[in-house]
């Protein structure tokens, strides 16, 4: 059983890896830019829009306080979960071929050449 398993070789070609790298980089930079803009917005709003940090909307809660304690952490959690799911799915979709002895290269989950 073990020796049989070792004959199945998962493999990636440089072209496939390059394609997934570029797709992953786009995904990371896209999410990274969104994160950067939202993060940079917080100190900018303090200076550019005084009402943001002085107007109480509920008890002593100002929009700035709500953003810092609730909205920004929530944004980070949603962004992280969204990125992680998409990045993992991208890896699964773009990579995943195996070579078996005496058979053509095949994509995992798809019939190999010669299969009925």
């Amino acid at each position: 059983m073990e020796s049989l398993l070792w004959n199945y070789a998962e493999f990636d070609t440089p072209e496939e890896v390059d394609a997934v790298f570029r797709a992953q980089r786009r995904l990371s930079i896209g999410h990274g830019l969104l994160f950067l803009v939202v993060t940079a917005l917080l100190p900018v709003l303090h200076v550019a829009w005084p009402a943001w940090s002085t107007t109480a909307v509920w008890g002593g809660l100002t929009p700035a306080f709500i953003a810092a304690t609730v909205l920004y952490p929530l944004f980070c959690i949603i962004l992280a979960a969204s990125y992680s799911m998409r990045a993992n799915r991208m890896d699964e979709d773009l990579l995943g071929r195996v070579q078996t002895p005496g058979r053509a290269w095949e994509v995992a989950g798809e019939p190999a050449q010669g299969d009925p």
Partner: protein
Amino acid sequence: MQATALVTTLLVLASALVISWAARRRASTRVEFYLAGRTVSAFLNASAVCGDYFSAASFLGVAGAVYASGLDGVWFGVGFAGGFVPLLLFTASPLRRFGEYTLPDYFAARFESNAARLVAVALVQIIVVFYLAPQMVGAGTVWELLVGRGLLGMNPYATGVVVTAASMVIFSIVGGMRGMTWNQALQFWTMTSAMALVVAFAFAAGFSYTRALRDLSSGPLVNPERWRVAELQRPDAAGVTPAERARAVMSPAYWERHIAPHLDNPEAEVVVLMPQSSRLQPGPAVYNQPGHLYTALDHASLLLTLILGTAGLPHVVMRFYTSPTGPLARRSTVYVVLLTSVFYWLATTAGIAGRALTPQAAKPDGVALPVQVVDGLLAHPDQVLPLLAQTLGGAVLLGYVVAGAFAAMFSTIGGLLLASAASWGHDVFERFLRPDAPERLRVLVAKLALVAMALVAMAIGLAFPRAEFLREFPAVIARMVSWAFAISASGLVPVLIVSLWWRGATLRGALAGMVAGGGTCLVLLAANLLRVGKAFPDWMAGLPAGPALPTLVSAPLAFLCVFLVSWWDRKNVPVHVDEVWMRLHGTARERQERLLRRAGVQSQPGWEPL
């Protein structure tokens, strides 16, 4: 109180020892000792990452910062939590897939250069020392405050430092990374549950988040400050003395009893409540508004430091090498973002509750803890969590908070010692001194390196000029930790991100980025320290003061250097970059491992887990 604190501290130590002992048989190879065999599940790893990451600065310091500064204090916690997002987006998965032991390992393999390894080792060790020093100071201070008893003829502070260093050596050597993982996870949940209990007790005592914020923000923010009497009575440009401003916000009874008797002695020092000024706009600071601690530039610099610096902290990065695969490293990080957000929300709430509830409770007669209370406010904000625990839940809750505080220090110090030992043992001994050393000798050297670093940490803790630093930086633990983040964000992270995602990064570019970013950061930090210590050379005295943290300058400089020098050096892109790319971004190896693991095959000669 001391008995309860001592018992809970001993319980934390005993549980860590039991866990380390249970893991001892699985610390005999390097991949087990350093990386727990790379088989740690996502949630366990996330809990351990949080235990590793949350030091005394997080457990006591964030609640203290919110207690003292309101909204500006919140930003420390927000930055700590947000720091894991760039780590997830840019480094967690490719670094895990690359599959080495340490960050210097990665740089050496990526650029095929021992010079890159050595520069990275130097930066890692500087970061570890900057991170360890405040942890050891915290260990001594917490022991002094909460246990209050010395052992073997030492004073309480020295006892805390020595007990912590000795304990960490035993736990780390016996249990290796496997024991450390279980310990850190347990310690994380200990401190989180302690924080949650304090918050729950506060709500049960009638604390209202919104009402407290409204009441605390109804006037100018006042905080305790230490003044020499001569300066307290010197009029400013408007003809008003600081003493008059202080008296206007303090109770007459406290003033007459504690301040007035000292006013005849100009050299005496008194601690008074003083209205705080806003750094964002003219006028007083207000609790629920920004401006007490940071100008806009300082605020941006703090966020950049904390958010960028996390991805280069050696003890945190090392934890991601323990994940079995890249996707699980990503999933771990998502859990970490969730857990850190919850933890810092609890810390923020505890800080506000402390400010709202302690003025009545913190009367000198009603406080058993040796805290300094100035007219209802704590002179040292880091003490708010223990005080709140004692006020709301008595000795039992205080004991549990003490356990949380020691858990926070143990987990972080253990992670730092292991990361430092890996750097010395793996990156220096195995690569330069004895590349042919047998496995047992390599593990032995790693353990010796750990003992040596623990001794260094202990020496730093004992020799640290605590009184001088505390005078200039009341929240010294959080401040020094942020220096470690700044060096990481400037020296390591820019080169790490660029080299993971741009094939064109060259050795010269990487070295230029690390040296320029890390060097600039260190120089600017030293200049800030000299300025604060009033030891600035005359010829530099006219230079404008930069932001409190230099990352705003040094991190972009590092990015610029690595890009420009690599572009200039573009003919020298490493020839094996395609092979590196297959390891960083391909998934064949982890798919093969998954296939074998599902079939119950653990290993085959020549196929070590990466």
